[in-house]
């Protein structure tokens, strides 16, 4: 109704706008802070520099993988194969490293291969119009099966020390941490400032409307899957180079952890909203929760139940918020 509608109060100042736009991200950051303070008071060793480095650096690859996943979920698709993909890429990369290939090749190939493999999923989703949950479920099985068949389950050892990226430091900071921060900021700004990034929100918010203004939706879907594959490749480098050996299996449930990071970070499973800042923060939150449980002597098995609860609560809150803010048809 024109004129008579009471509009919800909304900020005019820059601060209020920032709060409204990044409310979810701020909430996640506060949760991390509260956890650090709370558990730190209970057991000061929790907040020791060494423990924090271990937590954040060891889980940085999840934040990196969650960047690509965020883009996929923003356009209202999903990828269940990312865990299997990281396993496959790790084996490819490690095999190259021990076979005497130049280190830069061992580092670059997983990024390119990740994009190439995900291009297949993207094409099936965009052009064959198969729901992404089905495509990537199939892809997950193919990658997992293929990996075991190809390697016979053997581990790759004797990795050259100069290959172990995750053990390196920049200005005293562990490499994975630096990468996760830099990539999150770059990707976040790009999502926010580029026409490409904006088009992802348009597609996720209303693909029909996006198509009507000339955005070539199928091409964007393929591109997003490929970018996501490349980020999976980057995540692989941080993940596979942490130890002296590479297992030829994928870390169990890795795809769920990555998806959960995005969702708890405020990326709406209904598409169209959420940022990589949120998903990276949520990855940090998980790592913190996982470690905190150990420090307060709670079985680590609770971690999954806890995170599961968190997912349900976040999605419920998202649904409620949509219902409230988007009344009417």
């Amino acid at each position, binding site marked *: 109704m024109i004129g008579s509608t009471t509009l919800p109060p909304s900020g005019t100042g820059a601060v209020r706008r920032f709060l409204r736009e990044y409310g979810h991200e701020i909430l996640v950051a506060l949760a991390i802070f509260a956890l650090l303070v709370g558990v730190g008071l209970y057991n000061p060793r929790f907040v020791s520099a060494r423990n924090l480095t271990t937590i954040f650096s060891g889980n940085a690859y999840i934040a990196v993988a969650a960047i690509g996943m965020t883009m996929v979920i923003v356009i209202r698709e999903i990828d269940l194969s990312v865990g299997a993909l990281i396993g496959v890429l790790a084996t490819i990369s490690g095999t190259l490293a021990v076979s005497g290939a130049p280190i830069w090749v061992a580092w670059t190939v997983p990024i390119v291969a990740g994009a190439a493999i995900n291009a297949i999923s993207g094409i099936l989703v965009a052009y064959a119009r198969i729901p992404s949950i089905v495509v990537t479920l199939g892809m997950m099985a193919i990658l997992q099966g293929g990996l075991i068949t190809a390697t016979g389950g053997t581990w790759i050892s004797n990795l050259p020390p100069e290959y172990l990226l995750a053990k390196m430091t920049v200005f005293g900071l562990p490499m994975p941490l630096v990468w996760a921060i830099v990539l999150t900021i770059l990707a976040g700004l790009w999502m926010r400032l*580029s026409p490409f990034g904006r088009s992802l929100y348009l597609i996720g918010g209303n693909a029909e409307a996006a198509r009507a203004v000339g955005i070539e939706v199928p091409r964007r879907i393929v591109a997003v899957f490929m970018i996501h594959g490349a980020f999976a490749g980057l995540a692989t480098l941080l993940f596979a180079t942490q130890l002296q050996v590479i297992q030829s299996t994928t870390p169990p449930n890795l795809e769920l952890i990555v998806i959960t990071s995005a969702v708890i970070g405020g990326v709406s499973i209904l598409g169209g909203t959420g940022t990589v800042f949120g998903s990276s923060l949520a990855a940090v939150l998980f790592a913190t929760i996982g470690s905190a449980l150990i420090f307060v002597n709670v079985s680590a098995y609770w971690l999954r139940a806890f995170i599961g609860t968190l997912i349900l609560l976040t999605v419920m809150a998202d649904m409620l918020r949509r219902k409230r803010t*988007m009344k009417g048809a």
Partner: protein
Amino acid sequence: MTIAQTPPPAGGPALSVRDISKSFGPVKALKTASLDLMPGEVHALMGENGAGKSTLVKILAGMHAPSGGAILVDGVQTALPSPRRAAEAGIAVVHQELLLFGELTVAENVFAGHYPRKGGMVDWAFMRRRAQELLADLDCHDLDVDRKLGSLSVAMRQRVEIARALNHNARVLILDEPTAALGERDADRLLEIVLRLRARGVAILYVSHRMNEIFRISDRMSVLRDGTYIATRNARETTEGALISLMVGRPVDQMFPKTEVPIGGPVLEVRGLSCGPMVREASFTLHKGEILGIAGLVGSGRTELAHVLFGVTPAQSGTIHLHGQEIRIASPRAARDAGIAYVPEDRGAQGLVKPLPIRENISMAVLDRISPAGLINRAKEAAVAKRGFDMLGVRASGPEQIAGQLSGGNQQKVVIAKWLQTNPWVLILDEPTRGIDVGAKAEIHRLICELAGQGLAILMISSELPEVLAMSDRVMVIAEGRIRATLPREDATPEAVGHAMTARRSAS
């Protein structure tokens, strides 16, 4: 489960609607609607789009709770809180969009939700036999009740839906635009079935736009306008023209302040444009500053024509010239680049990106232009958004408000603002005021006139006859995929347009 068809009590109405009203938030969809439905009567319910017919049907089907008023079934006040309770009260509804299960068999569909039991298990033998009986009653003697419903034609599926309705021993049958999706022969057979049910004493409420059908089968007609009951007429004592006047109501000229603007040379010339069965050899010319109205019933092919012009479904044959140059429109992108803009019929589904702020909705069609360095120039975007926001007078806290929070009229303004940023030559408006309330409507109309005044060539599709008549310089009438008539403003009377709209093929 009752099997026998009990005759309705003689005398009083089978169903009475007393001052029923319904509001959706601030929008009043229905105010004081009343009507009586007698046993053994076919009662037509008429009105323009947005008059409240569907709302009334949904209330009687138990799908919406009324905001006020009473419903009497056989003289007893009855609440209809759910579709199940409506069915139990003897009211059966065949909706325009059939609500059936394509993967189940015919018999399963007839009994959907009410499977007969025998010893705790579904009584399949009874179910099949009874379904067969019901369908035989509807002239479907040979239909295999074990066939999957999805394999049947629309006409057959509709009969299954009617059988399902009758299975509940319905004394009141409501048919919502039952012939809209049917061909001529199937429509004729359906009308025969309706008459047969009437002879059996069923009270039938028949919602339709098609005048010839209504006059063929109805005993009485009731007209709704703007959610209000207007009048009931006996079929024998009224005429098509009189009914249209009741539906339209006030003299059309006084409704909207159409401003006269000089009409320039041709902008868009369409010749022999065809695409599938719904767009057949469309030829017309649209001029600078002209508002060309397209009138036609739902399913007449008017939206399909817009989709061809905008490249959603590219043409199979025919030519389109823009400013004398032949253009090919293979995609919405091509249409946009050529200078054609399309404000879709369903702005929620096709136009607006609800989770995003107004600013991002307005700028979305010109992202390339405001991103000179490969990044979105925030200042330019803000300027574009501000311009659109101010020009259309969007009522919101500012361009940063989330688009999904706006009212229908303001959402529509945002969608129009988006397209104006592309500086189009041709603006296609599909149902520009659907679901928008009266005050906002007038504002949108004023805006359309202004845009025409600025030299835009406007193609305006609308189901609302008064809107088309009041706004258009010329009116093009479409039926069954063909342009049936093009009338200059002075000849476009409700009767002339209404007649061309509802005439069947024989009329051409």
